[in-house]
């Protein structure tokens, strides 16, 4: 695949942006500065960047409970995201949503979701809407290996196939649910296989190779834009953190985590590719540093934001109907 160096450097930067965002979120969650559940995708950057960084602004995406990266890289502002994670009034969703309900509709981001699999029927509906409006935008529908066993995924894939909708199903296969391994959850771990059953082309890709992901996502996007229907990408990857920051993680062998981290890290790997193409180590280090600074600054901003006024508790339930607050 041909890709110019600027694009490649940008991909590298985006991977770091995601990682720096997530690492800081994890650190600050542990420090008690953020609430709720925080599921971070450290280790999964190639699978996110390689797909979502090809999206147009007018394209759409859904995201899972582990969706900060998708939200960030589809264009949401980091500072608003941190403010959301901190429950602040100026957060992306006014602090009402938190990590599992982060949306930015102007950017085509239809939200992370606290219900596994629930994004898929909705993403399919967005694709239906695009087709209805005769646009050539596309929708990205993310889900994990674990939730691929939810009924809604099946219904959405089948209907997308039947109606030839412009949607790309992206399965981030990090090989585990919360604790249960994929090998226990399904007799056939070759998830791309399922897509064929719906007449949808499926590809299994090394999800830690950003260029491979980019290439296969490109094919899928093209197909969708041309009105040729949905595609399915299974991206094999790994997460370094426990399921949710702070939870125990006894079900994955320590060595397995170590191995993925040290020998298969998507950023490291891509850094080596870039260095082989004469990018200097300092350049890469500078990028890393810039993203760490960017996120720290965004976080600092967020922490200075006010918490919402309690009247915000009962706004926006309806568009044209008021809900009553408390009397004391």
């Amino acid at each position: 695949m041909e890709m110019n160096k600027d694009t490649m450097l940008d991909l590298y930067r985006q991977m770091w942006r995601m990682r720096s965002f997530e690492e800081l979120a994890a650190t600050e969650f542990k420090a008690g500065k953020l609430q709720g559940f925080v599921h971070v995708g450290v280790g999964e950057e190639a699978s996110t960047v390689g797909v979502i960084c090809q999206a147009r602004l007018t394209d759409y995406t859904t995201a899972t409970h582990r969706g900060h990266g998708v939200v960030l890289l589809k264009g949401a502002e980091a500072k608003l995201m941190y403010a959301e994670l901190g429950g602040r009034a100026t957060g992306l969703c006014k602090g009402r949503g938190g990590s599992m309900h982060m949306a930015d509709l102007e950017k085509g981001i239809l939200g992370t979701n606290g219900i596994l699999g629930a994004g898929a029927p909705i993403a399919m509906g967005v694709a239906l809407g695009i087709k209805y409006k005769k646009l050539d935008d596309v929708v990205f529908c993310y889900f994990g290996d674990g939730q691929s066993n939810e009924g809604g995924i099946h219904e959405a894939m089948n209907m997308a196939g039947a109606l030839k909708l412009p949607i790309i199903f992206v399965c981030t296969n990090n090989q585990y649910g919360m604790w249960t391994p994929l090998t226990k959850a399904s007799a056939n771990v070759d998830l791309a296989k399922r897509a064929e059953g719906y007449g949808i082309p499926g590809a299994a890709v090394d999800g830690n190779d950003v260029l491979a992901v980019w290439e296969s996502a490109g094919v899928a996007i093209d197909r969708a834009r041309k009105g040729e229907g949905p595609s399915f990408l299974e991206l094999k990857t790994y997460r370094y953190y426990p399921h949710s920051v702070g939870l125990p993680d006894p079900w994955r062998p320590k060595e397995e985590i170590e191995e993925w981290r040290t020998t298969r890290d998507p950023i490291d790997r891509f850094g080596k590719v870039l260095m082989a193409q004469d990018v200097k180590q300092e350049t890469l280090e500078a990028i890393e540093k810039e993203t760490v600074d960017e996120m720290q600054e965004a976080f600092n901003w967020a922490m200075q934001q006010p918490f919402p006024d309690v009247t915000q508790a009962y706004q926006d339930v309806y568009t044209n109907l008021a809900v009553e607050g408390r009397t004391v």
Partner: protein
Amino acid sequence: MRNMNMTFALRDTLRQEMKRDERVFLVGEDLRQGTFRVTVDLHKEFGEERVIDTPISEKAVMGAAIGAATVGLIPVPEIMFADFFTCCFDEIMNQMAKMRYMFGGQCSLPITLRMPCGISRQAAAQHSQSIEAFLTHIPGLKVVYSGTAKYTPGLLVSAIRDPDPVIFLEHKKLYRDSADIGDEDQIEPVPFGKACVRREGKDITLVATGAYVNDCVKIADAMAEQGLDIEVIDPLTLFPLDTDTIYKSVEKTGKLLVVTEENLRGAWSGELVSIVAQDRFSALKKAPIRVGALDTPIAFSPPLEEYIVPREKDIVQAIMALK
């Protein structure tokens, strides 16, 4: 004015709204035929892009509606029998109802979810249910359930034009009701939150829903001959609820009877009695009474089905107790 049965009045309402606004579309199972014929042949006029027969996948039907709404369309999904809402309850409760709020008001979801409900023709336990209590409990939803043919089409107009998710319950028995409805493309919206006083009266306030509204009007008429003057109210929309009209009536009569087809325990009728007891306690002269279905699934066998849901004599008995 045209006199039509509800099936075709609703169909005509859908037509009108689809003609009026290109963003309006129908999505559901077997709509081209229409199990109750409400949508029959509309695809011939509007094309299969706007009358979408889906695979048999209720989650996908609702997902289609929600997703399309987020990109500016106005979906009118149908779940073939209300009982099947269980198959897409997550989409209804955790997604559609909450999305606007969770996302800080970034979107409105102008979805009208049509669902035929209630008993009719011995359809048994999984095709006969009244589900309003489940839906009125969910913040973010509006719930229409009209027992008054005259207003049902106009309520559908309002539902489709409403920016928020509206659950539109259609009692299957009422498809055969007829009413004068507006001329073609002239069906006017009927506002939400305004109850219909089907019969004025000063002795007892009787609130009924769905197919029981007509029955209760008939019973009230008959009781009038015995000198009992019963006010019969059809709330038309269960949320927003016209508490004004109901409270005023109770202030006048001091007596409340609620008749619905629901299983009594945990029914919407309980919510109504409870708010009246809380907000108009001193107006009540007697204990309010609810009449509803037994707390059983709906049995298939005709005499059992008939016995399970409120019968005329149950309603009369309740009226006598309030007298």
